[in-house]
């Protein structure tokens, strides 16, 4: 399956990923090792120092995986959304509620990224939706390679794949997973200036969900200011205010998902 893998030492685990090994690529049960291969090339010939022009994008390899994922998603008519936020913004709560509300109309699957534990995937499975947990070990983000392997275990023909990234507003911004959109989630219990503090993530996202809006009466969070900051960093960003607890604003979020799903299919 892996045509462009460069796996080796690592602490990444993908739930249910079974034993197989091919060339320098090893997976033991539930374990998936990432990094560079053991094959250190020894080329004969030249011993004199010389300059080699490389001009290669360092993330080119991740981009190859992301493109392979994009092709796989397109083939199955899947809309992939990469959900990014800081830890504790309420991603999983929002997801479980969204799945409950939409599962009658849309087939949904989830890839859960966390450093450790399969707790979140279990929470998703309780809704009846298939979920695969990816544990990144020391890693601070999901990459295209992990998502590709996790997707092999999911069946969401013509559905929506939510990829819940590791809670981190920095690193996941730089790694394309092959998704159609990044959706950044910011809870109103955080600072309203987060879009300015972590501009890369808000710049990379197409939609911002302001969550936990039911708590606004108890907080000093200035929602107008927050939206202004987000648009300064990304003039094109769309913004929705939602509460997974009361259900406020969720219908618009579902409409956005369905509209994106339709747009994703048109012309693909």
């Amino acid at each position, binding site marked *: 399956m892996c045509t462009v893998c460069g796996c080796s030492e690592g602490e990444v685990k993908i739930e249910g990923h079974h034993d197989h090994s091919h060339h320098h690529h090893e997976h033991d049960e539930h374990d998936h090792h*990432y990094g560079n291969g053991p094959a*250190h090339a020894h*080329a*004969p010939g030249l011993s004199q120092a010389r300059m*080699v022009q490389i001009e290669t994008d360092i993330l080119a*390899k991740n981009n190859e995986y992301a493109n392979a994922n994009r092709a796989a998603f397109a083939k199955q008519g899947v809309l992939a959304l990469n959900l990014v936020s800081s830890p504790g913004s309420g991603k999983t709560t929002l997801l479980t509620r969204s799945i409950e509300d939409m599962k009658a109309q849309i087939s949904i699957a989830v890839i859960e990224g966390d450093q450790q534990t399969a707790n979140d995937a279990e929470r998703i499975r309780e809704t009846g939706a298939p979920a695969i947990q990816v544990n990144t070990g020391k890693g601070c983000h999901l990459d295209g390679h992990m998502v590709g392997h996790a997707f092999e275990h999911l069946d969401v023909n013509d559905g929506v794949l939510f990829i819940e990234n590791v809670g981190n507003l920095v690193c996941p*911004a730089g790694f394309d997973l092959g998704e159609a959109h990044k959706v950044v989630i910011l809870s109103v219990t955080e600072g309203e200036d987060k879009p300015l503090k972590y501009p890369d993530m808000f710049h990379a996202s197409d939609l911002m969900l302001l969550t936990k809006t039911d708590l606004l009466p108890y907080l000093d969070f200035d929602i107008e200011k927050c939206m202004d900051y987000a648009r300064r960093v990304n003039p094109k960003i769309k913004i929705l205010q939602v509460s997974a607890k009361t259900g406020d604003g969720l219908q618009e979020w579902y409409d956005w998902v369905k509209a994106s799903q339709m747009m994703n299919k048109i012309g693909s």
Partner: protein
Amino acid sequence: MHEMSICESIISVIEQQADAQSFHKVNRVRLEIGPLAGVELEALKFSFDVVCKGGLADGAKLEVIELPIDAWCMQCAEKTVVAQRYDACPTCGSYQVQITGGDELRIKDMEVD
């Protein structure tokens, strides 16, 4: 922390190139990095030494060429350079500025044996 995985990507490009361009030792690597690439240079340099241990770039020197954030100001209809993503045009003060570069993360060249 993702500087570590970026270094692993650098090593994998080096290993690929070692095959393609027939070399067995890397003495110096030059990177081009823009301020919007989201890379902390000190962390990158630290990780690079660690990741290179025992491989064909063991002990290699890492040099970073820092690129500017290139932009296009629609009011001036000219190229300009800004310091961060939501800055105004330094010439006319307009916010109608489109970022055109600054997210580069590239290996430029290497000195090899």
